[in-house]
Structures are given as structure tokens and as C-alpha cells.
């Protein structure tokens, strides 16, 4: 497949009205005066509807913190956030986003199926509909035959896939994913990446995806946001103009390698402090 054909003009919308996430000067400080950690400083970011954004950066640079701020699981210490055109709190109350945490966070007392159904149950979706969607999502993450197991009977990677199924199940407008594929083997990982891209293509979902893997970030994203630590900030934003749909050939293309190098260098610059603003 020749790069450029079949390409989809997604995301990259300019209007703020079209933005799913807007961050203006967002900062986050943890702790007290004596024992304070500045996790994030001056985050300016605009994510358009339909984009696939990866956050990449060294451990402790505030990727999870940024995700949690968007999800209204933390309050910013400075700046302003708008999610789906609303304050983050309202977006959360409207169930505008689904989140996959860095830990699977499955409820031990529920079967795999019941875990996937939990958000639907809380949203008041009818029983048959819940069952059907759970089935569909579990098939998607290739865990259909484990539906009646309990989470502790699954491996770490399988648990993480259940968490992904749970977040996808209610078809949120925004997907926040914190290193969702970190615990997967290489083959499953590529498969899940492909599936995620398919879902992203088929639905109008916007994805904010945290990863430590440069190839993964490049393969999946429309833009890669490179972060640097102490305090956490955005040191570079790299466009990824690879054509869609992306597949094995994408992974072998020259553009792909060029972009990987570009991200790697941005990361290195961020760490040595050259990229500081």
C-alpha cells in the first residue's frame, strides 16, 4: 500500500469548538509547602476531535498526572482545562471519557464479564444490552472464553485487556489510556495496537495514550507529545503524517523510521534540557 492513499484527514481541527481537550497553562503541585513536588508546569495543549495523541516521556514526568487532570480525578493547581467543551468535572459526570489506568484496577469480586459491564451497569444500561456489549468487547480483546473467570485467575496482560474492554464498552467520546499495553507480550501488543486503531477509525473516539514505547507512539498517533521532567512539561509536539489504515507495512516504511528517530531525538533533547522554554 502506497503511503498517502486511503489517508484520512482526521483531527487537526483548528477551532477551539472542535477541541476535545484544551489545556491552558495547566500546572500541578503535589504535597505541602515543605514537601512539594511540582509534577506539571505550564501545560498548553489542544486536542481536536478524532485525534490520537500519545504522551511520551521519562518516568515521573507527569504523564499519568496529566491524564488524571483531564479525567477530573485530580484538580489542577494552576491554569485551566476544558474537556469536551465543558469543565472536566461536568465531562466526568456526563461520562464523556473512559479511562484505562496504569494498573488494571479490576474488582476481584466480579467476574471478567461483570467487570466489563460495571460502567454500563452504573449508567443504567439494560441487562441484555450490557451482556451483548460485554461479549463484544471481550471478543475484541480476545478474552471471550475467560468471561466467567475472576480477575485473579488471569495474567497481568490479560487483566489489562479486561480493563481496556471495560473502558471501550460504553463507547466514550474520549479514551484516556495510561500505558495500557505495558504488560503485554510483543505479539499481543501489536495485535492490540491494530485493534485499537481499528476501533479509533470506526468510532469517532479521541484517544489520549500514555506510552514509554517510541515505536508504539509513532505507529498509533496523529501527534506525539514529548514531555520532560522536573517539572513535567511539554518539550516537543511531533506530527505523525503516516497514512491510514496503518498496518505491518507501515512499520516497515521509511517515514515510520524517520519519525521514530525524530521522537527519540526530541526525548533526548528534553532530558538534557535543551528543549526548555
Amino acid at each position: 500500500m502506497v503511503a498517502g492513499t486511503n489517508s484520512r484527514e482526521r483531527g487537526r481541527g483548528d477551532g477551539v469548538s472542535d477541541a476535545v481537550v484544551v489545556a491552558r497553562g495547566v500546572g500541578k503541585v503535589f504535597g505541602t509547602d515543605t514537601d512539594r513536588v511540582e509534577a506539571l508546569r505550564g501545560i498548553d495543549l489542544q486536542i481536536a476531535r478524532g485525534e490520537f495523541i500519545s504522551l511520551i516521556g521519562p518516568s515521573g514526568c507527569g504523564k499519568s498526572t496529566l491524564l488524571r487532570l483531564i479525567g477530573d480525578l485530580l484538580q489542577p493547581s494552576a491554569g485551566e482545562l476544558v474537556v469536551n467543551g465543558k469543565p472536566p468535572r461536568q465531562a466526568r459526570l456526563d461520562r464523556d471519557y473512559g479511562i484505562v489506568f496504569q494498573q488494571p484496577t479490576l474488582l476481584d469480586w466480579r467476574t471478567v464479564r461483570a467487570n466489563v459491564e460495571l460502567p454500563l451497569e452504573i449508567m443504567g444500561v439494560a441487562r441484555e444490552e450490557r451482556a451483548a456489549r460485554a461479549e463484544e468487547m471481550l471478543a475484541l480483546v480476545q478474552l471471550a472464553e475467560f468471561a466467567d473467570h475472576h480477575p485473579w485467575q488471569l495474567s497481568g496482560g490479560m487483566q489489562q485487556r479486561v480493563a481496556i474492554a471495560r473502558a471501550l464498552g460504553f463507547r466514550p467520546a474520549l479514551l484516556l489510556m495510561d500505558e495500557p499495553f505495558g504488560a503485554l507480550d510483543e505479539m499481543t501488543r501489536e495485535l492490540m495496537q491494530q485493534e485499537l486503531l481499528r476501533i479509533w477509525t470506526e468510532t469517532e473516539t479521541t484517544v489520549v495514550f500514555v506510552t514509554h514505547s517510541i515505536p508504539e507512539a509513532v505507529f498509533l498517533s496523529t501527534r506525539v507529545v514529548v514531555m520532560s521532567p522536573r517539572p513535567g512539561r511539554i518539550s516537543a509536539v511531533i506530527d505523525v503524517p503516516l497514512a491510514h489504515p496503518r498496518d505491518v507495512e507501515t512499520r516497515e516504511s521509511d517515514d515510520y523510521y524517520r519519525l521514530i528517530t525524530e521522537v527519540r531525538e526530541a526525548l533526548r533533547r528534553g532530558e538534557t534540557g535543551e528543549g526548555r522554554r
Partner: protein
Amino acid sequence: MTPRDPTERDVELLESHETDIFAGFEGDIPGEPGRLETWIRAYGPAAAAFVVVLALWEILTRALDIETFLLPKPSEILDRFITNAPIIWGHGFRTLVEALGGFVIGGTLAVAMAFATVRWAAIREGLLPFAIAANTMPIIALAPIANNWFNVTSPLSKMAVVSVIVFFPVMINTTRGLFEVDPGELDLLRSMAATPREVLRHVRIPNALPYFFSALKVASTLSIIGAIVAEYFGGPQDVLGQYILNRANLFQFPDAWAAILVASILGIAFYVLIVLVERLAMPWHVSLRATEGG
């Protein structure tokens, strides 16, 4: 939103009271292959030890010619246990009713109070420290007093003692279980915009169940002890406590021992009942999971 409550150490202490003798019940998985073998491996050593102790007891009391009022022979106790069965089991039944009544009353109040601590922070902050303090006291010492809170001839007086004994461990442990929730799970529910009631139902209550049952197991044993001790301080004669007291005063020690045996059997049966309910209530729990080699 979820302050760690200061009960942890106290309840750990409480849990350490738990006897280990029934650990085998929790390790056994119904329906696993080689079930008989698993059972033998789980209970065989305990059964063998029991038989050996009884045999030694019999042999030594005979060989050393130990006086019956010091320590009767197992055979004598067994004899009284069989011939007096209708009387001592009748007494046992009435004592059990007192224990169960107090257990249900104390347990219900404890759970209600634990839920109240979730709903109203003032209760948690105001009353919990006192509950913890009360739990460290030997509440059984209250028996002669609590025995008089109600008509001493009524079973209610014994139930009052038992319910006070049961209340504190169950309340403290359940409260702890309702609060010691994985913060990640709270975040998850928050991300779904779950109401406090849904958080309670989907996270806090299931999380509290193991704590609750752990306290119930302790309380089941305590409730029988509490009822008998309360009976020592007066009331109707047709109960185990009074029977043990009277027989001992009359130097009828094998009779007293036979009644103690009944009390033990009741205590064990009560404990096992709770273990069974626990299994039904939370089949997911760690203690019930399949482990290598049973």
C-alpha cells in the same frame, strides 16, 4: 474523601486472635480432583493429634492415678456425656439461644454503626476512638453488671452481655473494611460518576466482607464464652454455665467436663457455620482460591 481510619493496629491485633485450627476448611476446594486425598491431607494430622492426645490423657490419668477432681479420665467424661446427654444438650440449647441472640443483636448494631461511619464523618471521628478503646478492654468483666441490665432470670440479660462483646470487634473490623479500599478502585468509580451509594455497593461492601467475616469468626467463639460467663453470675439453672458451676461445687467433675465438651462442640459448630456462610458470600476471596497442592 477516604481518610485512613486509625483502627488498623487494633484490628490486626484482633485478627491475630483468630485460631488457626480451621485453616484446613479454607484451603479445601470443593470439586477438585483427589478430594478425599486433599481432605486426608488437610485434616489427617489434626485428627491424629487429637486421638494421640486423648489416648495419652487416658493412659496418664490411669498410670499416675490422678484424682478425678483434678482431671477426670476421658472415658469418664465420655460416660457422663452420653448418660447425661438429654440434660446437657438441653442446657446447651438454651445457652446457644442466648449466644445466638446476643450475636445477632450485637452484630446487627455493629454493622449499622459501621455503615453510619461511612455516611456521617462525625460518627467516625467522634465515636470510633471510643469504640477502639472499648475493644481493648476485657469486656467480659462487664458480665456481672450487664447481667443486671435486664431481669437476670431472662435470657435477655445474657444476650445483653454477648451483644456488647460481639459489638466492638465486628463494628471496628467492618468499619475498617469499608474504608480500607484501593484508591484506584475509588478513582475508577469516580471516573464513571458513580454515586456514593454505588461506591458503597460496588466497592466498599465487597471490600468489607472479608473483614466482617473475620470479625464474625472471632465473635462466634466469644459469644458462647460470653453467654456461659454471664450465666456464672446468676439466672436460671437450666443452662450450661449454671450446670458447670453446680456440678463443680458438688465435686461432680466429669459432669462439668461433659458440659464443657458440649460448649466446645457448640462453639466449633458455630464457627464452622460462619466459615461456610463466608464461602458462600465471597467465593472470590483469596483465602478460598485454589493453591498449589491444596
